[in-house]
């Protein structure tokens, strides 16, 4: 079957090759084969396949990977825009900033169940 790919050039994933130790944890946890490794260094192989789940950044001991984490759910975006909270629906995105520094740690958004 044809592999499903989402929008082009939109994800926030970034990799600092200087920091990468080549341990390969990110390759193990990525569910969409976004990353690849050659000569002991990881590189972004298929950026558009990234769904910003944050597993790679979370499991990078060298903090070489960064991504603004979120669940790609339109219902959650609508609920957030309408100011609905988790009481009415499980699809909720927490307001920006409430989950801490977005630069050093991935923001933690709750999504659909």
């Amino acid at each position, binding site marked *: *079957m*044809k592999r*499903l*790919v*989402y*929008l*082009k050039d*939109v*994800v*926030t994933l970034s990799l600092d090759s200087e920091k990468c130790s080549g341990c390969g*944890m990110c390759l*193990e*946890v*990525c*569910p*969409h*084969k976004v990353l690849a490794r050659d000569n002991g260094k990881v590189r972004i192989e298929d950026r558009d*396949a*990234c*769904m*910003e*789940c*944050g*597993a790679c950044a*979370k*499991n990078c*001991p060298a903090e070489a990977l960064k991504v*603004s*984490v*979120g*669940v*790609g*759910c*339109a*219902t*959650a*975006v609508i609920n957030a825009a309408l100011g609905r909270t988790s009481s009415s629906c499980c*699809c909720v*995105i927490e307001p920006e900033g409430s989950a801490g520094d977005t630069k050093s740690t991935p923001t*933690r*958004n*709750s*999504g*659909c*169940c």
Partner: protein
Amino acid sequence: MHYKVDAGLYALGQPDDKSSVLVTANYKLSFDTLRSALKGRDLWILVLDTDGINVWCAAGKGTFSTDEIVRRIESSGLEKVVSHRRLIVPQLGAPGVAAHEVKRLSGFKVTYGPVRSQDLPTFIDAGFKATPEMREKTFSTWDRLVLVPVELVPALKAAIIVIPVFAFLAGLGGSSGYWNNLMNHGLLAASALLSGVLAGTILTPILLPWLPGRAFSLKGMVLGLLVALALVFAWDAHPLRAFTSPEQLAWLLIVPALVGYFAMNFTGASTYTSLSGVKKEMGWAVPVQIAAASCGLLLWCWSLFIA
């Protein structure tokens, strides 16, 4: 809704101090799926408290987490139960778990297991090695099909109220008597709305890979337009037809907007959309849907009551 199992350490079969420890969420279905995938084996299962939410969603919410693993290792006394220091954590739990932090805080080394629990026996027998296929989250036709009720059921509940309202208004409008109008404009309205719901919630998930474009809204709107065109042409054969062109045009606007909206909301059920992408898509799709639906509704009312 109680689909929870109690968090803690469970024995599958007759495990001893050398048996593997598998970590899962306390969503009953996750736990049962794991148990049935490993039938006949002797293993430990460490169930985390994720408030009855599955592994992937709980990892995204932060309840399937490093802290919860460390806490559950301590409360269950796992260090005394097993002599080794290895945990098998589902790969889809990785967005919430930092393997190196678990190691630092508890001494247990996290090995990420396969995405699908049915691959676990092969994974364990291969010496805790996953093939690239086991590491990929796919979105097969079957995966998409089982998600259909998520949108279909609430949409049908809304349709039960909305469709009679349209039919009633259609009876009042038009150039003929109430029942004649109802059987003409009302039937067109009811069939258009129902096809919109079914196309958006059933056809879109099934046809997803083959619909044009990458944005879900675009896929839905294209499908909606095709469905609306087919419908308008089909009703043209109505022996007592009294439809006007503006009325038909109205449905060519409303149905694509409706299908596009349902398609857009299917992003949440899909396994490959990013939040950045969804926000970008909604930036143009929501205004287009609102504009098309509003123009369509105004046109429909105008065609029935004023023209």
